[in-house]
């Protein structure tokens, strides 16, 4: 121990900082940067991972042209957009609503918070499997509950191509709304009480207090939660595969599911690398814009 301290004594602060940072940097390079660069390089080739010994040929932008000229992939992007937009809208509204509710003091508040947060802690595979049972048209609880309020008759959420996209939206909203709620709750609890007291002195109504104090304070937190959920949902895979496997037909085949099929069922590694790069650049670009907007709101 003493010798280690003696060794450090001869080093500058900058050198010590580098010693601590280097292992993380090496890991980051090996796990994140190297695969990314490798995928970008592969996207310009006709590499097939199952054809061992065959040299990949450089094909230029052919893979990108193929992907961006295919109507099939365009449809997958629209399915992904439908999924991402609706889950974000629902999770923002319900999450904020629940956070406002749980921010009040009432009996059983803590128990209710724990119960609401439970779905988030389950594995997506487990959620996918038990929601297929819930959606079952014969014995599923979902059919029973919906028909309890209005007699729709038997309907197959997962089997119908018009209802299936909504079935994945419902399950993702059920699973991840608690995440939005928790972050909003943290934001609500950080608002100092004297702001509301001052507003009451000025005779501001509850609605005015919500619009001018609560909403601006909680907005950066809500946007942060939506940024995380937006990125996650753009590359959503496990939950949807367990629930519908992209079906019926390709009604719920999100971009990431199609990417997996191209990469590991058809073994078009070069082509799927190009697809992955397109998705990565989109998420990276959108993430940058989002962080910029969030910082502007925080500055206000």
């Amino acid at each position, binding site marked *: 121990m003493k010798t280690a301290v003696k060794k450090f004594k001869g080093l500058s602060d900058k050198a010590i900082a580098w010693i601590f940072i280097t292992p993380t940097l090496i890991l980051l390079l090996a796990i994140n940067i190297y695969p990314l660069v490798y995928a970008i390089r592969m996207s310009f080739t006709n590499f097939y991972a199952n054809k061992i010994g065959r040299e990949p040929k450089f094909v230029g932008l052919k893979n990108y042209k193929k992907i*961006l000229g295919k109507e099939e992939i*365009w449809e997958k*992007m629209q399915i992904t957009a439908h999924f991402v937009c609706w889950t974000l809208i629902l999770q923002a509204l319900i999450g904020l609503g629940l956070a406002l509710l749980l921010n009040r003091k009432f009996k059983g508040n803590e128990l209710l918070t724990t119960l609401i947060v439970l779905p988030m802690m389950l594995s997506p595979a487990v959620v996918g499997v038990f929601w297929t049972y819930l959606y079952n048209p014969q014995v599923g609880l979902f059919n029973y509950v919906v028909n309890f309020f209005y007699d729709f008759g038997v309907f197959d959420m997962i089997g119908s191509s018009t209802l299936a996209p909504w079935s994945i939206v419902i399950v993702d909203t059920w699973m991840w709304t608690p995440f939005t709620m928790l972050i909003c709750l943290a934001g609500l609890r950080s608002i100092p009480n004297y702001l509301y007291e001052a507003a009451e002195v000025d005779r501001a109504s509850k609605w005015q207090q919500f619009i001018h104090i609560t909403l601006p304070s909680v907005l950066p937190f809500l946007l942060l939660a939506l940024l995380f959920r937006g990125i996650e949902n753009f590359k959503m895979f496990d939950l949807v595969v367990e629930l519908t496997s992209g079906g019926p037909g390709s009604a719920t085949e999100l971009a990431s599911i199609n990417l997996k099929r191209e990469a590991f069922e058809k073994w078009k590694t070069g082509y799927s690398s190009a697809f992955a790069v397109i998705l990565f*650049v*989109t998420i990276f670009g*959108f993430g*940058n814009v989002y962080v910029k907007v969030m910082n502007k709101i925080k500055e206000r």
Partner: protein
Amino acid sequence: MSEKKSIFRKIFRRVIWENLSTALILIGVFMLMQPFAMWMYTYSFIVILVGTIGFVITSHFPD
């Protein structure tokens, strides 16, 4: 020399170029996911790419 520097600074102001890149990214993402026209989808990636690279570069410009 200082005049040249001021012209350079006037042209390469962060706010303008960063906003332009942001607009390009947003337009690109819309083009990628819209259900209206195939040609918009085809050119979406190049728009997003230019916007993203632009954003990374322009965010280092002076204020």
